[in-house]
């Protein structure tokens, strides 16, 4: 199962023989079992697989939120294992973006402040033009002064997406970003991610359970029991459903 070959220059991130064990000895859980995968620059990739297959674990390890037991993760050509907590933090802040399933926003900050958060942490201000572009793209221009508690779940996720994009990250990671949303809000968010990929050339890696969501991606990677079991380019909803059936059955 070889992923499409790409040159180093066009690889935004890759995992080489990534293995992650939880626990020790006989009771150890092998959440990732020798995963090697590359994510091309500018591509929108979806990761799918049954519950417990290791999707979140892979994403966390790619994003420097968690460490591998063995193997290596590269962001562009930077290996991240062995990086100090501080370097990892700066990597996340300056080069990566995230959208989690829930709880993406600091409750005391307004939407605008949340969006600017990574930049402010770096002691910088947003480029006003880019800020407007991003905010316009997520359709939040009139909600900027609201606190998260005053926003709907869908709006909150869009604020999170805007926050993830404000630093022009090399890769945007999203773990089931539509998981807690109704279908309409989910569709809006996906449309936004799609536009980000198309218009800004944003590299996106998104974990999802939803075949319709995965269908908006350029590529779908399937995980099962910590291994990559399938890797398709623009499979379409039908192809995804077929693959899921295969895994399920």
């Amino acid at each position, binding site marked *: 199962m070889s992923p499409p070959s790409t040159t180093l220059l066009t690889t935004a991130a890759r995992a080489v023989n990534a293995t992650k064990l939880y626990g020790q000895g006989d009771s150890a859980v092998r959440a990732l079992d020798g995963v090697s995968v590359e994510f091309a620059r500018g591509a929108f990739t979806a990761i799918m697989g049954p519950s417990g297959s290791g999707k979140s674990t892979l994403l966390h390890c790619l994003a420097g939120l968690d460490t591998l037991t063995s193997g290596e993760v590269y962001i562009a050509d930077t290996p991240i294992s062995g990086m100090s907590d501080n370097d990892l*933090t700066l990597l*996340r*802040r300056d080069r990566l973006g*995230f959208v*989690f399933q829930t709880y993406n926003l*600091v409750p*005391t900050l307004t939407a605008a402040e949340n969006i600017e958060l*990574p930049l402010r*942490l*770096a002691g910088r201000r947003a480029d006003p033009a880019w800020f407007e572009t991003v905010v316009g793209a997520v359709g939040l221009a009139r909600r900027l002064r609201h606190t998260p508690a005053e926003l709907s779940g869908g709006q909150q996720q869009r604020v999170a997406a805007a926050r993830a994009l404000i630093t022009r990250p090399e890769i945007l990671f999203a773990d089931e970003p539509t998981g807690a949303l109704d279908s309409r809000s989910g569709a809006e968010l996906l449309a936004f991610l799609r536009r980000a990929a198309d218009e800004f050339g944003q590299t996106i890696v998104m974990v999802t359970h939803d075949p319709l969501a995965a269908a908006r991606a350029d590529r779908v990677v399937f995980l099962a029991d910590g291994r990559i079991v399938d890797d398709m380019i623009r499979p379409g909803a039908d192809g995804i459903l077929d693959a899921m059936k295969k895994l399920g059955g």
Partner: protein
Amino acid sequence: MLRVALKGLAARKLRLVLTAISIALGVSFVTGTFVLGDTMTATFDKMYSDLGQGTDVTVRGRPAFTDTTTLGSGRAMPEAVVDTVRKVPGVAAAEGGLTGYALMLDKSGTPIQPGGAPTLGVSYAQDRGLAGAIAPRAGRGPSGPGETAIDAATARKYGFAPGDRIRIVFESGKPAEFTVAGVLGFGDADNLAGATLAAFDLRTAQTVLRMEGKVDEISVRASDGISPDELRTRVAAVLPADLEAVTSATVAGEASKAVRDGLGFFTTAFLGFAGVSLLVGAFLIWNTFSILVAQRGREHALLRAIGARRRQLLGSVLTEAVAIGLLASALGLGLGLLVAGALRGLLASVGIDVPTTTIELQPRTVVAALVVGLGVTLAAALVPAWKATRIPPIAALRESAAPARTLPKGRIIAGGVLLVAGLPALAWAVAGPSRGGAAAIGSLATFLGLILLAPALVRPLVAVLGAPVARLGMAGALARQNAGRAPRRTASTATALMIGLAVVVAMTVVATSMKASVADVMERANRADLILKASSQLAAGIPADAADELRGLPEAGVVSPMRYGRIQVAGKTTSVAAVDPRTAEQVADIGVSSGSLPKLADGEVMVAADEAKTHGWRLGDEVTLRFPQTGDQVMRLAGTYTDTTLLGAGYLVTLAAHEANFSGRLDAVVLVRAAEGVPADDLKRSVRAALAGYPNVAVQDTDEFNAAQSATVDQLLGLVNVLLGLAVLIALLGVVNTLALSVLERTRELGLLRAVGMTRRQVRACVRWEAVLVAAIGSVLGTVLGLALGTAAARALADEGITVLQVPVALPLVYAVAAAAAGVLAAITPARKAAKVDVLRAVVAE
């Protein structure tokens, strides 16, 4: 439910201990004070009963009134009374004794001046059966005019042994030299409650104490079969009216009572500090429980949903409070034993030596520890616990259990009313002198009002104080937001600090005003160039001969001694000053408003104008003064004066009148003014040379005097601030606790921040700035409140000699900045915890 509560406790051991400590510190002050008091009382009781051993009845002058300050100042009686008593049937032995002033000098000639205790010169009982527990440890009793025996403590500390020569100063005369014949022990003790003692045979004692042919006490022993009471009755029957016979039990009882009364002030003061600490601790408990209840809102709602009743919920929270209270009591009791030791050291440092014996831990102390520890904790936890029961079961289903709460109307109204009433009262108290009532009421009302309204002040204060912090970057901005997001929590944490700091600052204002007042009095009322005092603050005074010596100096134009005594007027004990009317006005201006000081005669008294007004006296009226030794004396009111600050007394008589009514012959102060044309420095030099033989006299010009007075006030202030520092420390513990709980509460948020790029250093900075902000709010409120209360208090104490109000600026600022900076220390642990938050927790939690 008990299980749920106890399980919850076990899971939070550290916080439990931290919370308990805040109360335990206050409790330890209470128990420490009790333990020390009981230990001292027991020690002195034993000592006095030991001293009275073998003596059944004591004959002494009957004091006209008794009061701790007059105890033992009975008037001397002719030695012939001893024979009269000896002849009473049933008397086995009777011996007269004398007690007076004798100041020993160490081998280098420096006076051996114990802190608060007297320097005694006594006669040595020949009948050893009447000597009580006093017995030679080395050598023998003194005999003949050249011998003395000294207490074992002095002998040990200053290296005297039998055969050595020792110089001793008496009320009159230069030092005389004696041979140490023996070293005396007092039962197990080395001295009498810290006093130094030099014993002489009776004849010698009468000579050196200037009591020829007199004794001031007769110790009597009964023959077999005669009870002390019976003997007392028989002896009393032969005594003249101005003498009395009392049993040893009475004497010992009086002495113990005097010690207890003397300690009363310290007990009250220490309990006052304990009160401040407990108040601060109570805030902490209240805060901790409020946070716990808020954090457990969902858990409680769930318990309610599955059928727990309100009472059960209340019980479960209160169980936790009981556990904390019990822990606090136990810790406090243990710590109290240490505190007792520390307090004893503190007393020793101000000169009050307490003999070491076994520590007295009475059941009452244990009960007090339990009642205070449990009581304060439960009282402070009650409101939060009650709130826990108000959580509706539906809250279990809501996303956020703790909605933003606003201050209840009742609280705002109550706080507002208190402030509206308190501030004008304070202003009124500041506007005029001696408005004690207004100062007290205003202080209390303002204090309580501020506590009630503090949450409302938090947001504006955070906005202002946080502005520079927010400019430091995102960590600062977040810190500002966090400090303002739970105003009540921030307020109660800051309030705890406010209380401690307010008291410290208020004390400082009073102390600074006190110093300024001393300087002002010297400036305004003093006309002397030199002030002579005993070199120890606590010494009885200086020998009268010193003044006589100076009168012979050509450089000294005026030499005017002052003496003091305690009298009763209309049943109230007060001070009387005595001066030489011919010279007094040349050295001091007491603001005579009627009559004439130089014309004051021996049968006359001058009275402070206020005092005369209260009693409704007019010039020429007959005024009755009750002296302890001579009883009621009728004196003519010859004048009034308005400035009592230099004199420090509301009554003024002549030196001759003082000598006629008091047995003491020491001058408290001697004021000296240079002769015409003599420079002050020349005067000082020659006075010092003339008094070389009086080692216990301090010669100070007004600057030196002011400096010495300031130093004393500073020392006292330092002591008080150390004790109050405890309350501030507890308040900082509160900051630690609150922050730790807040960090716990914000685990997810912290994880999120870390995920999007907040470095550990930034997380720590954020928590630290939050701590500094909370502490700064407490500092600002505490400083402002302290300045207001201190100003009012200083004004209210105008009658006590604080005539000048001086508000210090630098010191409160230093305190405030230090307290805010201490927030950094308080933040260390919570900040570290926050920085260690697992990043993934934010992503995967729930």
